[in-house]
C-alpha cells in the first residue's frame, strides 16, 4: 500500500514564514477551512481560558483507580492500613500493556474497594485518606538510563485517544512504521480549555517532549496543530519551535477539526477508509494532554498523579481549568469549585462527545478532560425530518444522517451503507444542529454497533 502520504507542501495550513508579506496576509485572512462540513460553535471559553491552571486540593478520601482500563490487569501494591507517600506505587502492572498507578498525595489506605469511572464503569480502587502533609517519595534515580518506553510505562502515562497507555501506543506506532507525528492541540469542542492553558503555560516543555517523542517514534515530520484563532499562542509556539524540527500548523477550528481523521485529512490531505485508523496511513495523532503528561514523566521524572481538566458549565460558580488529583470524587470536586443552584446535567468530557456521568460517585481518571455541569437539560421533542439538510452540510465526513437513521428499523444493510455507518466519527454535530431534534448521531452509533455484531459474531465471544 505504501505510505499514501507525500511530503506535499501544506502551505495553506502552515504559516509561511519565508515570505513576510504572505505571512501578514495569512494572519489577516486566516486559514481556509480545511475540510468540507464542520461548524464554528459558540465556544464558551472566554472565562476559563483566561484563568491560569490552579491546583485544586480536595479534602476527603480519594478513590484512586488501581488500573486505567478494564482490560489492563494490575495487582495492588498496598494493603489496607498502609501509609503511602506522594508518588508511591499503588499497583504494579502485570502485563506489557498495562501501567502502574501512583498515590496523588501522602496518606493512609483505608479500604480497597471499587470506584465508578464514566468510561469504564467500576474499577478496583484504593481509598486513600490524605493526611495533608504531602510528603513526597524521594526522587527515584534508577530510571535515568531506562528507555523512553520504560519510563512512560513506569510513570503511568495514559493517552486519551486511542485510549491506551502511551507506551503501548508508541510501541504499536513504531511497529507500524509511522512517518508523521501530529500533536493534536485543536480542542474545538466548546467549554474545553485544558489544552489551551497547557499551550500557554508549558509551551517550551511541549516542544521539547514532542521532539523527544518524534525521536523515539522515528518519524520524518512532527506537526503541532494549533487553533489559528489564538494567535498569540501560535506566535509563541512558533518562536519556541524555531530551529527545531517541530512544524507549527495554525488551522481554522470548525468543530470536529480535533478528530484525528479530520485532522489528518486537513493537514496531510490523506483520507482514511471508513473504520480505519490513522495508523493505517503511517500517521500517529497524539492528544496534547498525553504529551504534557509525558513531559511530566520524562523531564520531571514524576509519576502521573494529577490531570488537568476544565470544570465549567452554567451551574459552576468558579469555572476554570484545574489540576486535579486522580481519584477525586466528582462530587467533592464540584462542591469545591462551587455550584450555583441545581445541577440538572453532569457531563464528563466535552458537551458534544462527552459521556453523561452515569453515577453520582464517579471519580476523576487520568483521561478525564472536563467536568461540565449544566443547570438545564435541554429536553428534545423529536419531530419527523424536515429535510433542511443542515446535518448533511455540516457532517465532517459527508454521510447522510437522516437516510442512515432509517436503517435502524431494517434487519440488514448493504456494504455501502455499512461503510457509511463506519465512516461516522461520532462527533455529534448532526444531532447538535438538527432542528427537528432527531437523535441522529446516537441512532447511527447504535445501528452501527448492531450491524457490526451481526456481521462478526466472533466479536461477541
Amino acid at each position: 500500500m505504501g505510505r499514501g502520504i507525500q511530503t506535499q507542501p501544506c502551505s495553506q495550513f502552515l504559516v509561511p514564514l519565508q515570505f513576510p508579506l504572505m505571512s501578514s496576509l495569512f494572519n489577516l485572512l486566516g486559514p481556509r477551512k480545511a475540510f468540507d462540513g464542520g461548524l464554528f460553535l459558540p465556544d464558551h471559553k472566554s472565562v476559563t481560558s483566561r484563568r491560569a491552571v490552579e491546583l485544586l486540593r480536595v479534602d476527603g478520601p480519594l478513590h484512586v483507580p488501581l488500573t486505567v482500563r478494564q482490560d489492563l490487569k494490575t495487582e495492588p501494591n498496598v494493603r489496607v492500613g498502609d501509609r503511602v507517600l506522594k508518588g508511591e506505587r499503588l499497583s504494579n502492572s502485570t502485563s506489557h500493556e498495562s501501567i502502574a498507578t501512583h498515590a496523588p498525595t501522602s496518606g493512609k489506605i483505608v479500604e480497597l474497594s471499587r470506584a465508578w469511572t464514566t468510561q469504564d464503569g467500576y474499577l478496583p480502587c484504593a481509598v486513600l485518606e490524605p493526611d495533608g502533609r504531602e510528603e513526597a517519595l524521594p526522587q527515584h534515580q534508577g530510571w535515568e538510563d531506562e528507555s523512553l518506553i520504560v519510563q512512560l510505562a513506569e510513570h503511568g502515562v495514559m493517552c486519551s485517544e486511542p485510549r491506551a497507555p502511551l507506551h503501548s501506543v508508541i510501541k504499536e506506532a513504531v511497529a507500524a512504521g509511522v512517518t508523521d507525528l501530529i500533536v493534536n492541540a485543536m480542542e474545538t469542542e466548546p467549554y474545553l480549555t485544558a489544552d489551551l492553558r497547557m499551550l500557554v503555560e508549558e509551551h517550551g516543555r511541549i516542544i521539547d517532549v514532542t521532539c523527544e517523542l518524534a525521536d523515539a517514534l522515528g518519524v520524518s515530520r512532527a506537526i503541532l496543530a494549533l487553533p489559528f484563532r489564538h494567535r498569540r499562542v501560535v506566535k509563541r509556539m512558533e518562536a519556541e519551535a524555531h530551529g527545531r524540527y517541530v512544524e507549527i500548523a495554525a488551522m481554522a477550528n470548525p468543530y470536529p477539526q480535533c478528530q484525528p481523521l479530520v485532522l489528518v485529512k486537513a493537514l496531510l490531505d490523506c483520507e482514511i477508509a471508513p473504520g480505519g485508523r490513522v495508523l493505517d496511513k503511517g500517521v500517529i495523532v497524539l492528544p496534547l494532554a498525553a504529551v504534557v503528561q509525558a513531559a511530566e514523566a520524562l523531564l520531571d521524572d514524576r509519576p502521573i498523579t494529577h490531570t488537568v481538566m476544565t470544570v465549567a458549565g452554567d451551574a459552576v460558580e468558579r469555572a476554570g481549568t484545574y489540576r486535579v488529583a486522580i481519584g477525586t470524587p466528582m462530587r467533592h470536586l464540584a462542591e469545591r469549585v462551587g455550584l450555583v443552584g441545581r445541577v440538572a446535567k453532569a457531563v464528563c468530557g466535552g458537551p458534544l462527545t462527552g459521556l453523561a456521568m452515569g453515577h453520582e460517585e464517579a471519580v476523576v481518571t487520568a483521561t478525564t478532560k472536563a467536568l461540565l455541569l449544566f443547570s438545564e437539560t435541554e429536553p428534545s421533542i423529536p419531530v419527523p425530518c424536515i429535510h433542511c439538510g443542515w446535518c448533511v452540510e455540516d457532517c465532517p465526513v459527508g454521510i447522510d444522517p437522516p437516510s442512515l437513521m432509517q436503517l435502524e428499523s431494517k434487519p440488514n444493510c448493504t456494504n455501502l451503507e455499512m461503510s457509511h455507518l463506519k465512516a461516522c466519527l461520532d462527533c455529534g454535530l448532526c444531532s447538535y444542529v438538527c432542528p427537528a431534534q432527531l437523535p441522529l448521531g446516537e441512532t447511527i452509533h447504535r445501528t452501527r454497533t448492531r450491524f457490526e455484531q451481526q456481521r462478526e459474531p466472533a466479536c461477541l465471544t
Partner: protein
Amino acid sequence: MFDIAMTRGRWIVEERSLTGAAPHRKGGSTHVHIVRTWILVASLVGLWGVVLFGVAALKILVMSVLCAVIADMGMQIVTRRPGTGRLPRAVLTGLLFGLTLPATAPLHVAIVGSLIAIIIGQGVFGGFLHSALVGRVVVQAFFVNSLSLSGALVTSPILAPGYLLVGNLDHAEPVADYQGWLTPQPSTTAEGYKIERPVQTLRRFTQDRVPPDDGNFYEPLVRDELPPWKDTIFGLVPGGIGETCTLMLIIAGVFLIHRGYLRWQLPVTVLASAALAASIMPVNLGADYHWFPVLEVEQGRAVGLAYVFFHLTAGQLMLGAFLLAGDVVASPMRAHGQLVFGAGIGVLTIFMRLYGTLEGECYWAILIMNALVGTINRRMKRPVLGLAG
C-alpha cells in the same frame, strides 16, 4: 495557597440526568424557530402589501391564514395525527398563499385556496410540493375570471398617493398616459389608477410582435408601457399583495439568510439564472426573433438592460426567489443541489413568461423544480471521506 470557600450550591443530581447520549448541548434552532422567523418576514412583506393595496389586502391575508389554521385543525382531527409545531406551519402556508393573491381577488378565492393548500398540498403531497403554491395554481385554474390576470390588456388597480392603506381599489380608474405613481395624474377623483401589470406588458411585448416605432422596439416599451423602475422597486405597481415590493422582499430574504434559515445560494441563483435567461432568450419583434435582447442599445440608452431589470422586478420572481423557493421542506438539502434547483426556477420562469400562456409562471416553475428535488438530492450527494477512491 489556592482557596475557595464552600458555596451556596449543593450537589443535587437527579437520577435521570445522570444518563443520556451525547451531544449534551443542542444548537438551539428548532423547527419552531425556523417557522416563526419565516412567519415574521412574510408578515413584514404582507404589511407592506396592506399599506400599498389597502384594507382589502388585509382581509385576504387574514382570511387565508384563518382558513389554513382551521383546515389544519380539521386535518389533525380527521387523520388522528396531531403533531407538534403544525399550527405555525399552517399559519405560514396561509400567509404565503395570501401574499401571492392580488388584492382584488374575492374572499372566496382566498378561502378555497387555503383549504386546498392545506388539504391537498400539505395533506396529500406531504409538503414535498410547496403547499401554498399548490393552492395558488389550483385557484388560478378555478377562478381565472375573478383573478383577472389573463387576457390582453387587462388592467389591475393600484392605490393613488393620497389613498394608501385606506383607499378602495374598486374606485380606481384607468389612466391614459401613465407617467409613474409619483407623477400627479390629471384625474383627482379616483382613489387609484388602473394600469397593466408589468409582467403582462412584458409578455405582450414578446408575444404580440410589437410594431417598431421609428425602428425602435425596446425604447417605446420602456418609455411608454412599463412603469418607472422606482415603482417596481417600492412595489407601486399592480400585482399580488406580496409580489410587487422588491425592496421589502430583499430585506426579508437578507434577514432569513442572516439567521441561516435560507441559503444565499438559492435566491442568488434564481435571480442570476433568470437574468441570464432574459438576456439571452429571443423575443419576437417585428418580423423575426431577436437573440440577446440585453445587448440592445437604442437612441443611446441601454434599453436591453432595462428590459432584463424589469423581468427581475416586475413581480412574482422576487417573491419566488426569496420566500417561496427556499421552503425548508421542499428545497434540496445541499447548497450544491440548491444551485441546480434555483437555476431551474429562474430559467423556467423566464421561459414560460416569454413563450408560455400559463399565469403565475414563477409558481409553476417552483412546483416543477420541487418535483425534481428527490432526483437532485440523489444526484448531488457528498463524497464520503475515505470512500472517494
